[in-house]
């Protein structure tokens, strides 16, 4: 249940898997993302509502073949340049995208967590997302005849999240902004949770979400595992790291250096642009 991070990633994440690393600004599983890069996983379908710099890094390192998302940016700073380079120039390899709104993605995870094939929402009407995204359809209310948007369930092969604490049995506790993490874990076949600390007993905290051990495949103790994101009650967001990423990521060579120095991974061989 409690494993080292490298072992957890090795056992749970395979080439070609659909992988969701979730965290809505808060508690982003950055260390786990770097471990995926180090292990050289390829052809992943990466899923996330708000792909930010760790997804920029995974994409830049060539791990991803596909991205399912609703907002891809560097929060408070601007665009993701590795993501842009992949979309605009196919570097280091082409990246397919499947694009939704937040409301749609959130409901896709809810359907996945609920064992339903789809979710219904008021969404997308009149937007060009409908024409670009095959996973947006309509459904008719059998009572009122009204037409509503339908989106298919998301059921990742593996979801990875970061949390404040777990106990030795693998029950996980997180609080603060808890985003979509519960649904992302419940929707997945397997799950890996990195935590700030493993404790004997989970003392109740207001606003907590508990992920019972039954739905957690493995826990890895990784203090600081969400830096430069933050862990409520443990450390603050490193806003300057997000700002600094802008310059690093704009340039392929600076990115390659960063990858080698900070993650300990080789830069990807440039693939052919699609």
């Amino acid at each position: 249940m409690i494993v080292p991070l490298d072992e957890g990633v090795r056992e749970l994440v395979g080439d070609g898997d659909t992988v969701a690393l979730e965290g809505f600004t808060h508690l982003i599983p950055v260390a786990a993302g770097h471990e995926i890069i180090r292990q050289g996983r390829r052809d992943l379908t990466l899923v996330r509502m708000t792909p930010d710099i760790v997804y920029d890094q995974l994409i830049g390192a060539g791990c991803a073949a596909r991205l399912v998302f609703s907002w891809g940016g560097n929060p408070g700073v601007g665009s993701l340049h590795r993501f842009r380079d992949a979309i605009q120039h196919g570097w280091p390899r082409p990246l397919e995208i499947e694009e939704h709104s937040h409301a749609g993605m959130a409901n896709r995870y809810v359907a996945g967590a609920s064992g339903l094939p789809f979710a219904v929402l008021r969404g997308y009407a009149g937007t060009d997302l409908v024409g670009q995204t095959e996973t947006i359809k309509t459904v008719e209310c059998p009572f009122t005849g009204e037409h509503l948007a339908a989106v298919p369930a998301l059921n990742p092969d593996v979801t990875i999240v970061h949390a404040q604490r777990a106990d030795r049995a693998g029950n996980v506790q997180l609080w603060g902004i808890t985003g979509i993490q519960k649904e992302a874990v419940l929707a997945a076949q397997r799950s890996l949770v990195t935590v700030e600390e493993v404790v004997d007993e989970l003392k109740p905290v207001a606003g907590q979400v508990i992920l019972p051990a039954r739905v957690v495949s493995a826990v890895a103790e990784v203090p600081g595992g969400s830096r430069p994101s933050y862990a409520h009650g443990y450390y603050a967001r490193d806003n300057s790291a997000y700002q600094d990423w802008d310059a690093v990521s704009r340039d392929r060579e600076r990115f390659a250096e960063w990858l080698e120095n900070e993650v300990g991974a080789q830069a990807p061989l440039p693939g052919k642009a699609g």
Partner: protein
Amino acid sequence: MTTATGYTSDEMMTVAAAHALTSEMACFVGIGLPSTAANLACRTHAPGLWMIYESGTLGTRPDTLPLSIGDGVLAETADTVVSVPEVFNYWLQPGRIDVGFLGAAQIDRYANINTTVIGDYADPKVRLPGAGGAPEIAASCREVVVIVRQNTRAFVERVDFVTSLGHGGGPGDRERLGLRGFGPTRVITDLGVLKPDPATRELTLVQLHPGVTVEDARAATGWDLAVSPELATTPEPTAEELSVLRSLTGRG
């Protein structure tokens, strides 16, 4: 750029945007310029403003301006923090929110908003972050206020991609699609304020900030900009507004 009267055009825009909000409203706040304006309103004329952010923080009242949509200070000062599905399904979708405050990369004659791509979707010139919460904020809030700097790159005849529907192609389009909110009721820029014409829904210049001319506004707009016969001038920011704004943005 600081004007002769001691404030920048961005400051004027932010203050003008804050004036769209009142103390009784619930406001769904986007990050960046919208967040700055909403937090300014909260600290000046609209102390009761109920701000919600898509990270699930309801009734938040941050004591510093958040850099991201999910900063810790939003959670610490909120009435309650809910999950992301809950904020969209239980709070936004049923029409509980009076006003959605959005930004834009491109906006067109009918206030349709693009934050997805410049150029072709399949082979974009510039790939932008994408939709986030905006399509449903634009659909479900009772009204929408857009805050965007006015220039011909942003103000285009037709957006390259409709990320969030404004007034579509004119009257009746939102109703036909079953959208419940009225859509954009004003667009606040660094030059002035535009509102949809009640009959045509076309964005019309109704207000200019001090020192800006109609020609400035027309030159910054990628279509033949309609101008209201009752064109007004925005009041200048008060000293208090500027002082609160600068303490928020750290440009004090």
